[in-house]
């Protein structure tokens, strides 16, 4: 091949890339206008409404003195919700860990069993917790158990999946070595897999506790329990100041938890 054809070939690579970018951008724009036309969404009107919305928020959603008198009650419900999330997540984590052992490549008893575990986990994970709550309300009614199980199912599905990946990642080498010493299955799990993956597992559990505090608010609205119930109550009474105090307190709690868990993670790792 001569220099000339080489040069023109590399040129054609560049021009092709340019063409791909142009076509992509045009496609995205076309999709946007198509979707806007179908849903009758007007971007300029949306932007124009922003300042008004902001003003409304400032005048209605800033907690006033009356809202502050409700703070003790809000904090009580908030602790209840937070503790429920912790309880749910820890219980789900224990179940998920033993399930993930059956799903992981290095520790599964057989391939069909592993597949069954993965499918079960995917099912529990992919039904949204709000849907679980609505379904469970038929059997438990407006009860704290409904919220507990709704969160438990999604957390269990999520953590099983995460733990399978963690166990796969950390343990292939040490599992082989422990088998070679004559260790039993349970010995390999508790002496090899658990110590190798404990910090990843803890990171996931802490993350799920945070997530569950957020979701439990929404589920509480449905089931009439916890902090979600309070939010619903104030909102329906048009007491927006108190409702926004509820939201603010949840945000503060999640931020505080994030800082604490960040520190815990640093210590373990």
């Amino acid at each position, binding site marked *: 091949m001569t220099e000339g054809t080489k040069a023109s070939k590399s040129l054609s690579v560049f021009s092709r890339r340019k063409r791909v970018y142009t076509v992509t951008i045009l496609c995205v724009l076309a999709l946007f206008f198509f979707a806007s036309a179908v849903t009758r969404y007007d971007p300029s009107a949306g932007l124009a409404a922003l300042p008004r919305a902001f003003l409304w928020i400032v005048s209605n959603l800033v907690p006033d003195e009356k809202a502050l008198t409700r703070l003790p009650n809000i904090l009580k419900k908030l602790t209840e919700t937070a503790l429920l999330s912790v309880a749910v997540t820890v219980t789900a984590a224990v179940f998920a860990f033993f399930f993930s052992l059956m799903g992981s490549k290095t520790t599964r008893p057989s391939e069909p069993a592993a597949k069954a575990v993965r499918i079960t986990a995917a099912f529990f994970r992919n039904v949204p917790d709000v849907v679980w709550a609505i379904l469970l309300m038929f059997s438990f009614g407006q009860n704290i158990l409904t919220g507990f199980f709704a969160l438990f199912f999604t957390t269990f599905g999520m953590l099983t999946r995460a733990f399978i990946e963690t166990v796969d990642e950390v343990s292939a080498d040490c599992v082989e070595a422990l088998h070679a010493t004559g*260790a039993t299955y349970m010995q390999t799990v508790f002496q090899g897999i658990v110590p190798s993956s404990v910090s990843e597992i803890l990171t996931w559990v802490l993350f799920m506790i945070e997530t569950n505090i957020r979701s439990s608010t929404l589920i509480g609205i449905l089931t009439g329990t916890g902090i979600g119930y309070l939010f619903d109550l104030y909102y329906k009474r048009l007491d927006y100041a108190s409702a926004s105090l509820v939201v603010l307190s949840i945000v503060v709690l999640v931020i505080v938890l994030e800082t604490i868990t960040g520190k815990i993670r640093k210590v373990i790792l």
Partner: protein
Amino acid sequence: MALLEVKNLSKTYDNVTTALQDISLSVEEGEFVSVIGPSGAGKSTLLRSINRLVDASQGTILFDGQDITRVKGKELRRVRTKTGMIFQHYNLVNRLSVIENVLHGRLGYKSALSGSVGYYTEGEKEQAFVILSKLGLTEQAYKRCDELSGGQKQRVGIARALMQEPRLILCDEPIASLDPGSSKVIMDYLREINKTMKITCLVNLHQVEVAVRYSERIIGITGGTVVYDGPAGELSERMIHSIYQSAEGGLITDVRERQ
């Protein structure tokens, strides 16, 4: 009687890839044998079928006169405790301390429960410290394994194998990830263990010179079959090339000789 006898051993993965083909060999008690051969020749599979991490497709394996090809459960655990294994990537539990990793060598002797919770007797702990001091790791005993250098990790691997009180140690490329200095330390320890404790060593190696210098006997494997089995001193240049299926001058070992 030979400590280890492999008879007509074959292994195919998923009925497609042939790793071992009709391999027969025997190893006497106290021997130091190296296995050489190109990557993918079946060296690792051979070692792993001896302690049953891999199940052979055909053939028999006799360990100390007992047919272990199909043993299961308790009996398999007992066989494995008598066979230590050392890995290229050390295969330690990195987040645990050195001493805990060494004590893992006792798991095969313990009940499922006491092993799971990590309960070891005082005697076992003392024994672990004796082995650690022999390998020059006393100061590292309470360090986490991920703080150690490669050479130190491999010494922990050896300590774990010794903790099993094995009769045979299988080494799968023990120095392939180590620098020349640490490699010498590790090979010297293996030779010392072999000479003073009379533990039989079967070592997979990539470095032909190392195999020649350290072992009494060399087994050459290529394409899943044994092509050489004899004294290290009698391994000819020609034989090496036929084991690695390379032309004259095609091996890294040829470079030095030309100068």
